[in-house]
């Protein structure tokens, strides 16, 4: 294997990609599947996670073009050069270009080039690998049509990529015990009658359909979402759950992340100086969502999809007895529950008055 001069690589584990356009040779969903499978090959042997963006600037931009297409390396019509990609870096760095004059296919045939195979090779460049002179390696420069069912990376490719990216992913923090007296949460939401409690990459699932608390990882429900949510809330009418992390948010419907996400939180009406939110809760009766940031909160009207005037307001001014910041929030059975540290506060939805204070782990019958 080889790497580029000075061995450029992505200095982060979450790498974004965006498909800028599609080839007419294949169905769009087949292109998306080929690209996702190509990324999966590399993520399976590195700590990297690939997150697809539908808008905005992505680290790796994927496009199809013919002839001259705005860089120094024009394509050459059918055959010859099939594609090229740039090593990790800003702007064009990491981008992968595919020659539209080729016939792209989903399968390996004599009449076309398997997009998955070519994309997997090009994405190797996007991650920092150069060409390998090992015949049979994915990074060998010549296209070799082969059966892609149960396709695996050659050991040379694995050695190459692992020379750039640590093989042992940064060890996630262990899941705290249910009855840990210091248990805190990153975010909490309802989901179709259940309650999901999030902490790092873990989720506790409390369901009316089973007695015990179920323990899962966030990636087991939503593989492309990294853990460490800041906030989450459900809009039951739309069967939609919103997840917030840093300055982005995602809308999910069941297991599916909705197209067009993530979006910047500023698109909800937050000013630019708000970089992340602490907690969010949706009031099903008023169709308002409260977002908590520091000691203030915003009110978002889900019907008009706009921030209400007169906000942000001080949390303590409206929610009597809540003098802390809010780590996570939940609405259930006519009450709001505001979590702060290892405690949570039960608040009446209508009067906004504090009813009682409890330990956070009381939700797990501790």
């Amino acid at each position, binding site marked *: 294997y080889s790497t580029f*001069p000075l061995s450029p690589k992505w200095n982060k584990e979450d790498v974004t990609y965006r498909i800028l356009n599609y080839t007419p040779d294949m169905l769009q969903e087949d292109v998306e599947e080929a690209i996702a499978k190509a990324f999966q090959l590399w993520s399976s042997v590195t700590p990297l996670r690939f997150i697809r963006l539908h808008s905005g600037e992505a680290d790796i931009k994927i496009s199809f073009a013919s002839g001259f297409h705005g860089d120094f*390396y024009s*394509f050459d019509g059918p*055959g*010859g*050069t*099939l*594609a*090229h*990609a740039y090593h990790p870096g800003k702007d064009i760095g990491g981008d992968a270009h595919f020659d539209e004059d*080729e016939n792209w296919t989903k399968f390996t045939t004599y009449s076309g*080039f398997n997009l998955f195979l*070519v994309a997997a*090779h*090009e994405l190797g*460049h996007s991650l920092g690998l*150069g*060409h390998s*002179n090992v*015949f049979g390696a994915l990074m060998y*420069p*010549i*296209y070799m049509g082969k059966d892609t069912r149960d396709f695996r990376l050659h050991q040379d490719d694995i050695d190459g990529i692992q020379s750039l990216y640590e093989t042992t992913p940064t060890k996630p923090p262990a899941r705290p015990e249910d009855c840990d007296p210091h248990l805190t949460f990153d975010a909490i939401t309802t989901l179709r009658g259940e309650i999901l409690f999030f902490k790092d990459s873990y989720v506790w699932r409390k369901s009316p359909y089973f007695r015990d608390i179920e323990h899962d990882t966030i990636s087991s429900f939503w593989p492309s979402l990294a853990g460490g949510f800041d906030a989450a809330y459900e809009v039951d009418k739309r069967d939609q759950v919103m997840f917030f992390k840093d300055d982005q948010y995602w809308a999910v419907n069941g297991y599916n992340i909705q197209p067009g996400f993530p979006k910047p939180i500023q698109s909800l009406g937050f000013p630019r100086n708000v970089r992340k939110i602490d907690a969010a809760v949706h009031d099903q009766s008023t169709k308002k969502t409260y977002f908590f940031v520091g000691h203030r909160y915003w009110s978002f009207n889900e019907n008009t999809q706009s921030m209400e005037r007169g906000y942000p307001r001080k949390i303590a001014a409206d929610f009597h007895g809540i003098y802390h910041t809010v780590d996570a929030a939940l609405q259930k059975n006519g009450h709001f529950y505001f979590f702060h540290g290892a405690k949570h506060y039960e608040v009446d939805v209508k009067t906004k008055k504090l009813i009682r204070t409890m330990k956070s782990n009381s939700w797990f019958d501790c």
Partner: protein
Amino acid sequence: LPVIPEKEKEDMQFAQKYLENFYDFKEEKSSLFKSKDLNPMSKKIQEMQSFFGLEVTGQLNSQTLNMMKQPRCGIPDVRS
């Protein structure tokens, strides 16, 4: 002098372009003094043959030309 057949000329041009694209080959102006070394194109052909595990001859033989004509990735195999 014998004339280079048209096909051979085309192949040489194709190979030169290939080596420029993928093996950092730069055509040098001919020197007044004759170099003892192999001509630069032969050296690059050797490099290419070595990379692909072909017999290293420095000659543009059919095996080498055939390899050059395979569909491939547009990123160079060798950089300066």
